[in-house]
């Protein structure tokens, strides 16, 4: 028997597969992460002083410019990390720990605190701008 029907069968199966899968992909929405979510507290409402030994990271967002711009910051396991955010519009600081942490901040001055317990390198970025803030080196 000629192998021709098989070629046809394979081609049809492959086409059906490509068709069905590509058709599905039209309706897909952006991927979402399993994550902890929190809101930064506007600075005016912050009452407690930071714990001694906390690492304070001053983040400034002006338009699409972010400082710091992605450099390495050393912190210790369990050390409190405080983001002091000064922004001209609301946005999201995304901490790529596992699981990830999303910090939603308002326009103006605000701050949020996290504690990282697992050693490793953790990227922090302004999610809505796709701009890096820092790589936290948790030792």
């Amino acid at each position, binding site marked *: *028997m*000629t*192998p*021709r*029907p*098989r*070629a046809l*069968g*394979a*081609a049809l*199966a*492959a*086409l059906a*597969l*490509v068709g*069905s*899968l*590509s058709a*599905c*992909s039209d309706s*897909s*929405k*952006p*991927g*979402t*992460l*399993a994550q902890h979510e929190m809101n930064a507290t506007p600075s005016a409402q912050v009452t407690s002083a930071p714990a001694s030994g906390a690492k304070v990271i001053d983040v400034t967002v002006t338009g*699409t410019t972010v400082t710091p*711009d*992605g*450099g*390495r910051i050393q912190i210790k396991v369990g050390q409190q990390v405080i983001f002091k955010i000064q922004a001209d519009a609301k946005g999201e600081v995304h901490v*790529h*720990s*596992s*699981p*990830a942490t999303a910090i939603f901040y308002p326009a103006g001055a605000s701050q949020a605190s996290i504690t990282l317990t*697992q*050693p*490793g*390198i*953790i*990227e922090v*970025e302004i*999610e*809505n*701008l*796709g*701009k*890096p803030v820092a*790589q936290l*080196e*948790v*030792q």
Partner: protein
Amino acid sequence: MGLAPGLIGPLAPMHGLGGARDLPIPAPLAIAGGTAALVVSFGILVLAWRAPRYNRPDPGRPLPTRVARVLDSAWYRGLLRTLGMVFTVYLAWALIAGPDLVTNPIFGTFYVILWVGIVPSSLFFGRFFRAVSPVRTLNLLFAKATGADPAKGLFTYPERLGYWPAALGLLAFVWQELVNPHSAYIGPVRVWLALYFGITLIGSAIFGETWLSRADPFEVYSDLVAKLSPWARRSDGVLVIRSPLSNLASVKPRPGIVAVVAVLFGSTAFDSYKDSVRWARIANSIGGNLQVVNTVALIIFCATIGVTFALASMTTATEKAPSETGSGASLRRLLPQAFAHSVVPIIVGYMTAHYLSYFVEQGQTTILELSDPLVRGNNYLGTANWSVNYFLSFHPTLLASVKVLAVVTGHVVGVTAAHDRALTLLPKKHQITGQLGMLVIMVCYTATGLYLLFGS
């Protein structure tokens, strides 16, 4: 990550999956590893055997008849095929009906269990992917349905294409994993897998099973790593156990094999490099579309490995008189293929270092997620309530030591394999000097690998 907002939509994390990355390995460990690699290399060159050991055809001890009969039996092979097929259908369900969430198990299965898992599964069990490959099974079923021979297609596969289709397939995978900013979104994964199944199925109908052995990126990758396992099949079909080094020497030199190892090695090195602060700054200063910049960088990394390796291996036979047979030039052109197998252990060592914690930790996460293919709180496999053990991440010194050990072991095995091959190819009087080029490039690869693990 210096992308203009709105250019390609919101950014997924660059690695697609997993959050924290490994800490850099400590400098003393990196230096110790590099020195060990250097010393052992020259030790092998000067002190190791002078007559080739692994050039005998068909070495190895046959497996006990009873074991071989089980492993070769139709029901055992059928069982593996059925398991592979059931798992594929289960995942197709998650792929087609599941939501576009990173917790959809298709992502962890595609990028971690399949891609990274090829290395340990093939290292321990031999040609693992081929045994469970859903495309191979479908080809068998189509052939059975039409009464044709699964091994044969409409045409004979042109041998001069060699592994080039697989090299392209591997490049397509690493591009999807490392460059595509939407790698952790379900749409691109659907398209990639649809193309994969389409190309492999149609190709196997046209060229028969040879297409799968040469063009299916996962099968070619798995077959190559399997050459470092003790499992092999003699040319008369008997299952044997051999030393990994003599198994490795049985890799068939074919066109495109250098491209395959170059893509595997170059892409992993690029993966280490692209997460560094330095690359983020460079990419930012180049400007333009990050996707394009990363694509170019990925290709440069792979091409650098391919070209440097080809050049180094061609220096091996420098003095082999071309006048004797008039075939000196053509022999030299074949040298990179003849040495390509010796990069496989270096790749495996570096992959182990690069992916160990990711595989163990993200792999566990995926096993949890597999119980809930549609991400709606099911627990079909009973694994949903397990918890992930982050032992490796919590012991960074142990992890770093294992990584350096893996790189150095891969280097030693690679240098030994290259040494043995050089002895079969080189004339007696150039046996030591002729190996220098190869040795130097391997030390460079290992040093670069350690530097990337240190500087990441």
